[in-house]
């Protein structure tokens, strides 16, 4: 609203500045709203729900960074999330360092293993690469189950909390910070030359290679970044929830993230976040439906895949395009909903 007051020149300047961070004014406004949500609701449950929402959103973005760009569906994604969580927890417990350092360690550990995974999938493409990631993840989960002396196996590992306070708000802001970091980093990368390389090898690896793109390098870099993010968020999760079981590394979690990311829209980064904002609360509020809820969830997934493979982002684009074409009222807002920006 305030932007109306500003002079047009200044407005353009502001817009440019915001745009540099990969945001449209609408996105910036949404961000502002998100960041004050806990104060609006003043409700512990809503805050906790928002923490989960942001976490799923950030994970979906990191997932999309691989699947939507280099076109390899990392079917073992959550194993890296779990790996980060376990690393962070174990470092914090064994070495007694602060959970913050633990979180970083989680990110680093996942990055290292993600680097290895990238190397493993060099020669593979499509569904074979996905299966490779899946098998690696299953193996990691099996190790977590069996390395009882370190992980306590399936009995579960008690993890120290990040804050002494019992409020959810601090966690919310940590998660928000992580989410923003993830968003900006991924936006930055995908808009850079590197992002172009990712898209090129994702769309046609041979053509990319013959145009001078080193597929191995970019594949590995992509996996490393995406897994590092998963690990960092995993570290946060461990200290947020306080207990870890090897199920965290399981396929079921990956499927959840994958569904969110795909329903959101592939190759967009922000689609996953937007979808998480809708789906996670939706699933929470429809808990009363029990199994029917999951049946509907499956049906939604199928419907999106058949009728709207571009996902929510495609829907959004269609809506804005429609408005742009048809409505004069739209005109003054055109700049705000600029096409190049993200949200």
């Amino acid at each position, binding site marked *: 609203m305030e932007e109306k007051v500003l002079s047009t020149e200044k407005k353009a300047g502001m817009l440019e500045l915001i745009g540099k961070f990969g945001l449209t004014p609408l996105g910036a406004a949404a961000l502002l709203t998100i960041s004050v949500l806990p104060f609006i609701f003043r409700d512990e*449950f809503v805050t906790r729900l928002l923490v989960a929402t942001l976490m799923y959103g950030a994970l979906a973005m990191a997932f999309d960074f691989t699947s939507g760009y280099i076109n390899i569906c990392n079917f073992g994604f959550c194993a890296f999330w779990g790996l980060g969580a376990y690393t962070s927890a174990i470092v914090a417990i064994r070495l007694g360092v602060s959970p913050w350092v633990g979180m970083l360690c989680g990110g680093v550990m996942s990055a290292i293993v993600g680097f290895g995974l990238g190397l493993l999938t060099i020669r593979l493409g499509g569904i074979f690469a996905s299966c490779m990631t899946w098998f690696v993840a299953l193996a990691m989960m099996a190790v977590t*189950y069996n390395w009882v002396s370190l992980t*306590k196996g399936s*009995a579960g590992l008690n993890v120290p909390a990040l804050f002494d306070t019992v409020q959810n708000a601090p966690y919310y802001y940590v998660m928000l910070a992580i989410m923003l970091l993830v968003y900006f980093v991924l936006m930055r990368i995908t808009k850079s030359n590197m992002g172009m390389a990712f898209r090129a090898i994702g769309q046609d690896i041979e053509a990319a290679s013959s145009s001078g793109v080193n597929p191995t390098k970019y594949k590995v870099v992509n996996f490393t970044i995406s897994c590092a993010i998963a690990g960092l968020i995993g570290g946060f999760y461990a200290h947020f929830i306080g207990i870890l*079981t090897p199920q965290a590394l399981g396929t079921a979690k990956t499927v959840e993230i994958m569904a969110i990311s795909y329903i959101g829209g592939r190759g967009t980064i922000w689609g996953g976040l937007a979808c998480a904002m809708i789906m996670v609360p939706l699933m*929470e*509020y*429809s808990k009363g439906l*029990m199994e029917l809820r999951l049946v509907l969830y499956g049906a939604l997934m199928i419907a999106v895949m058949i009728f709207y493979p571009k996902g929510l982002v495609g829907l959004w684009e269609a809506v804005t395009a429609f408005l742009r074409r048809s409505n004069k009222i739209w005109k003054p807002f055109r700049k705000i909903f600029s096409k190049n920006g993200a949200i």
Partner: protein
Amino acid sequence: MRKLSKQKMAKSILVLVLLLSMAGMMLSGCSGNDAAKSATAAAEGDKAPEAAETPKVCKVGVIGPYTGPAARSGEEIKNGILMAFEAINYKVGDYNIEFVWIDSESDAEKAARAYEQAIVKDKIDVGFMDWHSWVSVSCMDISAKYQIPHFFSFGAGDTINEKIKGDYEKYKYWVGKAWPTSSLLTQAYVETVTKAIDSKAWTPRNMKCAIYGVDNDWGRNFGAAIGKQFKDAGWTIADEAWVGLGETDFYPLLTKLKKEDVSLIAGTMSDPSSVAAFIKQTREVGLKSLIICDGLGWVGEWYGLCGTASDYVLDQIPQWTTAEAKKFKDDYTKKYGYEPGPSTAGMGYDWANFFIKVMNLTLEQYGDLSTESFRKVAEEHVIPGKVSYTGGIIHQEYKYTPESFPDPVVDQDHYIFPVIQYFEGQGKMVWPDAWKDQDIKIPDFAK
């Protein structure tokens, strides 16, 4: 043209569905919020005068895995609890009891979220029950945060003890485990076997024993406990084997055990399909060992799954012994169409009755069923063991003491699972002596 319009239609339908669902979500979110607000307003604004006229309500939040892989256990516990409260017509004194079913989905994070929702939105006064250890651990933090007393949860893992012992003041609101740590119960098997050997009922050909189990917290804890106890009793542990949840092919495992020629195998599995397959296959392979299989009879339909292969198997399971127990079983079967498991539905029923007793006591002592009163009754009566429940259909007496807490008191007069031996689908108690139906029988192949 037609195709195009069809496509458009499909798109617009999808848009509509999405928009509707979004709207629905917002509405439910907002209304939930409104309800919460009005509830607070009611709580703050008009206290005493109106309360007398409107019936008083006590909201109980019950955690359980109502959907997801462990839904079966969740369902049975829920039914057991409902039957207990039906008997009192959902009324304690002038309070109406209302339930909020908190679905844990077998996931720590989702459970914690749902629990917090129940506390903040649905304003539960008190919490009750739970199934998985890891869910208990994550929910403990929530109950500590709001100081909502949470009574009797089935999560048996040591992680819970660890946490409570680590900071008793903080976590004392997690009032007791409904299922003790494995090691407290497994001793019974060792005693049974030792007695059989002492009385020359069984002369095992060697003192070798193998431990097996499902690869989760329950199986591992159980295996570790019983393994140690058998070792202390003079056995050597020849092998340990853990199998994935849901595994139904045990040929490799059993062939291996057969080769090692152990005279006793002991372990547990938590899902009926695995248990049944395991027992059937021991016979098929021709394993010459006495089998301890904890949890074989957890679900009612077990005998239909494994048949006479279960003869001679030792299990530690409460039985439908008393007349009340049998009546409960029949009522349950009639109502829900399948036979209840004693340790899920049966114990759910008992603990619910204990909880009703606690509620009555709370009302008596403190005049209301508020969170604050529950807190007091937990600290002053339940944990010190001043109140106990003796009318149960499964156990003699449900009781805590400061020493045992958070585990219930486990011994022959309180909470104990009898050791039983199966013959044609019927469990015959062989331990403890007080309840004994018959002596332990050793199959020919294990002699």
